[in-house]
C-alpha cells in the first residue's frame, strides 16, 4: 500500500522510460545549437607572440556576457568568441588594451571588466582598507606605548 507506484513498474518498462528520457535530453540541446563564432580570431591566436600575450592578458580580465562567471579567455560561448576576436583584431591593429577595455565599458558598463576601475562609485572599496590599516596602526601604537610605560 505504501510502496511507490514506480516500484511496481516492470524493470523492462522502466528501462524504456529511462532511455526515452535520455533521448529527449539529447534532443533539447541540439535544438538550441548556436553557430560558433565565425570571427577570424575567435579560436586562433595572433601570429605575433608579443601581441597575443597582450591580448591574452586583456581577455583574462574581460567578463563573458553569457556565462558570467567566466572570462572570455576561458569561455566557449559564441559571444565570447566574438569578443576574443574583437580584442585580438584591435590589438593587432595597434590599439592600446585599456582603450579596448573602455570601449567595452562604454557599451556594457563596468560589469564587463574584472579589473576594478576607480570611479566616484567604487572609491570606498579602495579607501576603506587604507583607512582601516591606518586606524589599526594608530591603535596599536597607542597600545604598545602604554605597555612600554608599565
Amino acid at each position, binding site marked *: 500500500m505504501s510502496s511507490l507506484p514506480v516500484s511496481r513498474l516492470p524493470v523492462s518498462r522502466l528501462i524504456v522510460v529511462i532511455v526515452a528520457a535520455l533521448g529527449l535530453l539529447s534532443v533539447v540541446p541540439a*535544438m*538550441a*545549437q*548556436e*553557430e*560558433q*563564432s*565565425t*570571427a*577570424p580570431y*575567435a579560436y586562433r591566436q595572433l601570429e605575433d607572440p608579443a601581441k597575443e600575450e597582450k591580448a591574452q592578458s586583456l581577455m583574462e580580465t574581460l567578463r563573458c*556576457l*553569457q556565462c*558570467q562567471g567566466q572570462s572570455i579567455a576561458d569561455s566557449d560561448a*559564441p*559571444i565570447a*568568441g*566574438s*569578443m576574443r*576576436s*574583437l580584442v585580438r583584431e584591435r590589438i593587432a591593429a595597434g590599439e592600446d588594451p585599456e582603450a579596448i577595455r573602455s570601449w*567595452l565599458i*562604454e*557599451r*556594457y*558598463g563596468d*560589469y*564587463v571588466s574584472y579589473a576594478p576601475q576607480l570611479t566616484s562609485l567604487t572609491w570606498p572599496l579602495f579607501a576603506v582598507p587604507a583607512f582601516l590599516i591606518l586606524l589599526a596602526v594608530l591603535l596599536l601604537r597607542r597600545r604598545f606605548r602604554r605597555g612600554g610605560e*608599565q
Partner: protein
Amino acid sequence: MSEQTPPKAPRWAIWLPLALFVAFVALVMIGLYRPADRNVASTLVGKPMPEFQLPPALPGRPGLDSRQFANGSPHLVNIFASWCLPCRVEAPQLAALAKAGVPIEGISVRDTTEALQGFLAEHGDPFQRIGADDDGKVQLALGSSGVPETYVIDGKGVIRYQHIGEIRPEHIPMILDKLKEAAQ
C-alpha cells in the same frame, strides 16, 4: 596590583556584536531571496546608434546600414537568430508590430543563410531589411549581450530603449508607447 582599571564601556555595548551579526545575516538573506538580475543592459541608451554596415543576410534582400535610421521616423531593430528559441516565441509579436506599421529592421547574429531562410519560412518575416552579423561585431558595438534583443531608435538615429529578451504579448503596448515617445 595595578590600580589602573580599563575604561568602562556602556552596558548596551555588550549587545553590539550581536546586533552587527544580525544585520549581516539580514543583508545576506535579502541578497539570497531577491532574484538576481543577470541581464547586462546596454549603456548606449540615449546615445546615437554606432555606425555600421552589414551585408544582406538573404540573397536579393537589402542589408542594413546604420545611416538608414536617421530618416525622421522611429525604427525597431531586432537582434535575432534562427538558433534562438525565444526568437520563435516573439515572432508573432513582431508580426503584429509589423502589421501595425512599425518598420522593423533585423540583425541576424552568427547565423547561416539556409538556417535563416528556414526560420523565416516557419515563423514569418516581419523585417524590412536583415543585416548579417556573422562574427557578432555589430552586436558587441550595440552593447547587446544576447538574443533576442530589440532596440527602439528615434528618427535622429538615437537609441531610446533596449528590450532584453523576447517581446511577449503583454509588452506590445509598452513597445508602441516607446515608439510614440521616440516619434516626438
